[in-house]
């Protein structure tokens, strides 16, 4: 018997019982739709998080910190050693200084981070105003908006005023003393961070200050390819330092989202389980209603395998239709959610909507296959009963 005829007959049966077909596929569609909706939401949230940390350069960089308990400090020789490794694009150290910033009568403690502008670029530091300083700039700094807020200055524009900065240190009797004072510090850029009072300045300039440096706080290392990343990381770790790569962070985030996806998927599975019971019910009823028809077909020379194929294809068609409808249901669910989020975002000043669903084609294909797999499983038993039916079972009773 040709497959096309089996399909035709199966479709005919499904068409004949249109309402039942519709309700069954509807059940599957809701189940599959809920799963797709939840899983794509999990993927979307992950994409949002991972996407922001794993762009381009960030993937090729790693942060090298002193070894555990700072037994292994980072100094110039460390930098020299790392620079000698293969595949190193650059090494950027970071120092932290403490200082007091003065503007007129106002005074505040400020954390000064001395790094080259490349360091900030690798960290994907975003400016709300102005620019980053250059490596050879003097008496220029980039500050956090929190710093400007302390002085009552507008936080979204670069101020034209200059600050007096007193760099402080701790003397031998552990008293905080002013080490160096710079009178005219100008602000060239502002970073959005309301919670911190931080100023960034070029490392080269910091080195000219009369400051008693011991070691670097940490260094950023960039390699030329992801392939080199692991090798360099291992070499640095072997020398006693601790290393964090973006890949680690991504993996960490991914593992969290993997669980979120599992939980969301599990919720969807409950819906699918309910739908499966409905489908099993439909196919069993379909079998019971058609025992006579199956009997007749068998007496006319249909093989048990033909009958089996009728039922399995009927189930698979139901599964496929349910899967396709499920995709449509999920799509509408996503659109509706985005619409509601848009309306809510409109109510908030400056609110902008992020895309919280990520729907790769492969996921949809997987769910279609999944729907058909459910159909296969639920169709198996009714098909087996139909296959085993004795041709005279229904005819003899008449």
């Amino acid at each position, binding site marked *: *018997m*040709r497959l096309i*005829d089996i399909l035709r*007959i199966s479709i*005919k*049966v499904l068409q*004949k019982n249109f309402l039942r077909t519709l309700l069954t596929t509807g059940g599957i569609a809701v189940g599959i739709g809920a799963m797709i909706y939840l899983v794509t939401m999990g993927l979307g949230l992950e994409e949002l998080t991972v996407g922001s940390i794993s762009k381009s350069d960030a993937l090729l960089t790693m942060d090298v910190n002193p070894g555990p308990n700072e037994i292994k400090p980072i100094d110039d020789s460390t930098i020299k050693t790392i620079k000698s490794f293969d595949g190193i694009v650059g090494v950027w150290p970071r120092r932290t200084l403490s200082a007091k910033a003065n503007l007129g009568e106002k005074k505040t403690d400020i954390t000064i981070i001395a790094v080259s502008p490349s360091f900030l670029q690798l960290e994907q530091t975003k400016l709300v105003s102005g620019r980053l300083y250059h490596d050879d700039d003097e008496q220029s700094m980039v500050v956090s908006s929190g710093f400007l807020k302390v002085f009552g200055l507008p936080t979204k524009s670069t101020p034209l005023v200059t600050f007096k900065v007193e760099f402080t240190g701790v003397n031998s009797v552990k008293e905080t003393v002013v080490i160096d004072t710079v009178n005219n510090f100008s602000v060239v850029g502002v970073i959005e961070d309301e919670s911190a009072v931080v100023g960034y300045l070029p490392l080269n300039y910091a080195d000219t200050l009369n400051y008693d440096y011991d070691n670097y706080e940490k260094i950023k290392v960039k390699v030329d390819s992801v392939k080199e990343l692991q090798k360099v990381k291992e070499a640095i770790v072997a020398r006693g330092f601790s290393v964090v790569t973006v890949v680690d962070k991504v993996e960490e985030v991914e593992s969290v989202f993997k669980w979120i996806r599992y939980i969301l998927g599990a919720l969807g599975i409950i819906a699918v389980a309910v739908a499966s019971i409905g489908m099993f019910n439909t196919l069993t009823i379909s079998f019971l209603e058609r025992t*006579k*028809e199956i009997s*007749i*077909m*068998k*007496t*006319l*020379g*249909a*093989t*048990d395998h*033909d009958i089996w194929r009728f039922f399995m294809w009927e189930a698979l068609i139901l599964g496929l239709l349910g899967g396709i409808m499920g995709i449509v249901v999920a799509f509408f669910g996503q659109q509706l959610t985005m619409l509601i989020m848009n309306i809510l975002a409109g109510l908030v000043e400056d609110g902008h909507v992020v895309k919280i669903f990520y729907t790769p084609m492969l996921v949809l294909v997987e769910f279609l296959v999944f729907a058909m797999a459910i159909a296969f499983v639920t169709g198996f038993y009714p098909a087996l009963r139909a296959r085993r039916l004795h*041709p*005279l079972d229904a*005819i*003899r009773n*008449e």
Partner: protein
Amino acid sequence: MYKVEALTKSYGEGSAYNEVIKDVNFTINSGEYFLIIGPSGSGKSTLLYLLAGLETPSRGSVHVRGQDIKFFDQNTMATFHRINIGIVYQSFHLLPSFTILENVAFPLVLQGLRTKKREERAMEVLQRFGIDALADHLPSQVSGGQQQKAAIARALINMPPILLIDEPTGNLDTKSSQEVMDIIEMLHKQGGRTIIMVTHNTEFIKYSTRTIHIIDGKVYDKPSDIPSSSSPDLETMNLMEKIKANQDEDIDEFMINPFDKM
């Protein structure tokens, strides 16, 4: 063509044991119009199903062209049903969701024929039986006689050499019964087909080339062989009387023109 030996069919066990066919022996030759006549409950339908291979003998054997059909595997049996025999039932047994045309063409679907070809062939047979105008109707939309014609058409679509017919006029009015009888007669005469029919309708005796009688699961070649101890109920007695009358009539007819109905 058919050789039935010591054929017995029983159902149940112990106190529920019931022998429906009891040690039956007969042969049917190719081209015969073989009638198995008996009252309802005599086991005639079961006997037909055994001949069709739809029932498995409890004992004994049914040989078709030298092959014991009991040993057919599922696929061989399906092929046997598709190619070698056509079955017509008292209740027609058309597929309710298929049109008359689709019903008639269904055996060709099982054969794997293409849609156009099988519909052409089904249409031809429907035309032959004068029901081509009903091709697109569902079985529920046509009369019993028309359904039975369609069922016969379906049984014939593969041009099987053997037709097994179970009480073809049981559910039909007189006019339709006559039409169906004529069709079966024509199939026998024109096609040289072996017709094996079980019925309680003695009208068919005049068409048959040979008749055996079945009472309580046992077969008898002549009505006179039926023992009076076989607890004949009213229906059986009536039937036996009809058989006798019909046979006398038959003999008269044969004497006038023996080829009239061939």
